[in-house]
């Protein structure tokens, strides 16, 4: 029944858009001459590569230790405040690493609140008399990234500890294993795939970041790509470094894929009641303090600081108009990308569902979701190459017609930003909508077809109304991620076009901390929505596991619609 119709055509367009930047990178990188590549490798990218590897290693260790220990504390023990700690541990997800870095830099500045208070307590008058180690260093960056990204490991490890593992842990305890033995010999090995997958995602985020590294004066491959393009206008050089980054990403993707496959031996079964050990008194308070430490440092402290700074700023000068403009710009860009992502994902996923055996449609769907793994800077450089090509064609066309050739039409434009965001976050929408579709039995499709509906009519009359909650979820996730995105937006935006994230970046890079806090606060506020969503989905999934798939269950979808 495989036919080439509208579904295939849209899928093909999506896949082409997603793959073009990566292909262009390879082409551009080959244009640079060998000598320049040697220069880039030896003098520019070499140090950056070493520093990047060191940063990745440090972040991996940090997120694994924090994430796993936190997950173990909230699943293996029952103590006062455990449930609150379980949710609080998710909060750093609302803070992008660059916002966290921004806040902590301000906090630990020699004349910032922390050091001033410390000097006051110790009786020093002069900032020069008491010097704390500078946050702008590799260890400082590991600290910030670790605090920001440990939830990726925490979520996976907690799910693993909660599900089948609890039975094994129970068995191990009955067999007389000691506490440490249970953790190291039973729980940890079983949670290994979840940990590896989480750590791989955290490292992809680290590699993607441009703001935190820049603020903390760490020279990573990402900041090098940016500098090579912005300061030296060397597109082939930037493309070469970007390609090198893709190799690291590829490794991480393989680790993540492998880990997901290996989860087979510790499947996320129906959640069981935990064999949690009740701990009260001072020991319980100790556990609570331990569990609350990461969100305190990774969310509460910086968020409170940002809120106070922002409040002071607004109280003194009113709401800064440039932030209002940036917020509006952010909305426009994020909304446009969200709409394209959700509509595209709906068509692509539906197209595959209607012809599940079509290799074309499966392949196209896979290709069009590739962008999620590609760091924003790499994507932007690739896209610049593609759109630059379009621009030269356009200029030539204008010249041939005798008109005045325009400047850069596409390569630095709102359009380019929207395309980049769409490519990068398309997979989020696809994953969410796929999950929604999986809950609808195929017999619904078959009934609709036999009762006279074309695939498109079925999508409109049956699937759209039933998928409304999934579509809303997908839109929320994509919108928030678009809003927080920094590297691609930074590289592709037109002159004088600021979003909340680039506004924050600009001020922090200039060392001016004026309206940044207001922008940061807005980002954090919007970023809290998906965390709330995640918390609700977590509990909803537990309920779902106990219910059969019946028409009655589907009715929830109808009522939400």
């Amino acid at each position, binding site marked *: 029944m495989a036919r080439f119709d509208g579904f295939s055509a849209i899928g093909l367009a999506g896949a082409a858009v997603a793959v073009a930047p990566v292909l262009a990178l390879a082409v551009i990188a080959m244009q640079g001459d060998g000598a320049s590549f040697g220069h880039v490798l030896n003098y520019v990218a070499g140090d950056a590569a070493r520093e990047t590897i060191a940063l990745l290693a440090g972040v991996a260790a940090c997120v694994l230790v924090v994430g796993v220990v936190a997950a173990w504390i909230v699943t293996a023990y029952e103590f006062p405040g455990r449930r609150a700690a379980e949710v609080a541990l998710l909060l750093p997800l609302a803070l992008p690493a660059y916002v966290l870095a921004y806040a902590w830099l301000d906090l630990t500045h020699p004349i910032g609140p922390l050091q001033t208070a410390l000097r006051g307590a110790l009786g020093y008058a002069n900032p020069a008399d008491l010097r704390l180690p500078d946050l702008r260093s590799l260890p400082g960056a590991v600290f910030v990234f670790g605090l920001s990204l440990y939830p990726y490991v925490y979520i996976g490890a907690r799910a693993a500890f909660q599900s089948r593992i609890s039975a094994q842990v129970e068995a191990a305890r009955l067999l007389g294993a000691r506490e440490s033995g249970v953790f190291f010999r039973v729980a940890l090995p079983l949670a290994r795939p979840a940990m590896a997958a989480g750590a791989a995602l955290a490292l992809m985020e680290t590699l993607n970041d441009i703001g935190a590294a820049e603020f903390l004066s760490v020279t990573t491959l990402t900041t090098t790509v940016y500098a090579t393009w912005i300061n030296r206008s060397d597109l082939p050089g930037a493309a070469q470094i970007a390609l090198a980054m893709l190799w690291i990403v590829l490794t991480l993707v393989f680790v993540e894929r492998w880990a997901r496959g290996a989860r087979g031996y510790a499947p996320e079964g129906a959640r069981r009641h935990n064999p949690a050990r009740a701990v009260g008194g001072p020991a319980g308070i100790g556990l609570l303090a331990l569990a609350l430490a990461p969100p305190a440092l990774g969310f509460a402290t910086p968020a409170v600081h940002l809120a106070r700074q922002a409040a002071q700023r607004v109280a003194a000068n009113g709401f800064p108009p440039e932030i209002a403009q940036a917020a509006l710009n952010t909305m426009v860009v994020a909304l446009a990308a969200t709409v394209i992502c959700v509509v595209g994902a709906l068509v692509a996923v539906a197209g595959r569902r209607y012809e599940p055996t079509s290799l074309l449609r499966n392949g196209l769907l896979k290709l069009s979701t590739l962008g999620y793994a590609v760091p924003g800077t790499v994507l932007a450089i690739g896209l610049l190459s593609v759109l630059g090509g379009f621009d030269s064609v356009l200029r030539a066309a204008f010249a041939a017609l005798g008109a005045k050739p325009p400047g850069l039409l596409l390569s630095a434009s709102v359009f380019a930003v929207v395309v980049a965001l769409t490519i990068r976050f398309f997979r989020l929408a696809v994953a969410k909508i796929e999950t929604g579709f999986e809950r609808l039995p195929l017999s619904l499709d078959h009934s609709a077809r036999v*009762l*006279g509906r074309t695939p498109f009519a079925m999508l409109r009359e049956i699937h759209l109304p039933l998928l409304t909650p999934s579509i809303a979820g997908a839109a929320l996730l994509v919108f928030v991620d678009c809003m927080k995105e920094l590297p691609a937006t930074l590289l592709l935006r037109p002159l004088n076009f600021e979003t909340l994230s680039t506004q924050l970046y600009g001020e922090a890079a200039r060392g001016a901390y004026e309206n940044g806090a207001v922008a940061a606060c807005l980002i954090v506020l919007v970023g809290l929505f998906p965390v709330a969503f995640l918390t609700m989905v977590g509990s909803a999934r537990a309920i779902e596991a106990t219910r059969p798939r019946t*028409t009655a269950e589907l009715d929830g979808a109808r009522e939400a619609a």
Partner: protein
Amino acid sequence: MHAPAPVLAFENVRHAYRDKIALRGVSLDVRAGEIVALLGPSGCGKSTLLRVAAGLERQSAGRISIAGRTVADARAFVTPEKRGVGLVFQDYALFPHLDVAANVAFGLARPAGETARATTTQMLRRVGLAARAHDYPHMLSGGEQQRVALARALAPQPAVLLLDEPFSNLDQGLRRDMRNQTMALLKESGAAAVLVTHDPDDAMAVADRIALMRDGLIVQMGAPADIYDRPVDPFVLRFFSEVETLPATVAHGEATTPIGRFPARGCADGAAQACVRKTAFSIARDGALPASVRAVRFLGERQAARIEIAGLKSVLEIALPARETIRPGTTLSLAVDPAGVFVFPAAASLHEERARP
């Protein structure tokens, strides 16, 4: 009398999924107003045949025609929405976001006019759910959902109605009612109906003809009584009743078995197998077969007795009416009803083991 032209015709239909052959050449005609049951164990290809007829799957070879028009062959393929067939699913597949009336009206012409509304009301009245028109599917019981599914499929007056295990989600008592109601509705509609089931009781109760399938082929086709009384092989026999298999020797059209001599038409001389229904035995004062009782189990209307017979090493299990008093250790005198004994060539037992439904 001239037989009417078939409404639904399969001609030598073959189909293979990526890694499995599902249909190996099936030919079948269904006439208007006729109900044909496709019966067989899971994986025999009966559901595939239904999907192919609906156009949800395109067969690898062969031809399908509906009301004289070819809907699928090597060149042509009519998509499901243009075939004008009705389909009822095991899980009913009611649209959860539409109320009962909207579900029933779904297959009718759009925009919904007076006629569509009238048809919907009439269909709902016929299935006894007129009062539930504005309820949503989840508010209905299983039997009510089944009736809505049937009304929805029949509302556009399809020439062909396909039913995929329509009774298997219902409990026993309800099931009997639904079989009768469904049969009445189908007969009233005059559609050519094909019902897929793995339950011989469903098939016998509803169908005019049964096509028994195994491994992608129709093994035997005929009226229920026909297929029950004259099974072509042990597989068909075992599908409808519990049997015991005994060794037999055939000579001159007669089989000699440890429980007596029986006619064996069409069997070559030599070793054979005799399959006897467990219910073929009865207690008779002048019975020819002495049997010693080893154990007895009470089963309600019947009782199962494990017996030993001279000349047979294994123990036989037979079914006897519950009112007879039988005690282990005693000897019975049994009679065997020849209508319950079937003699087959020995080699025909090839598929026996996987033949159980």
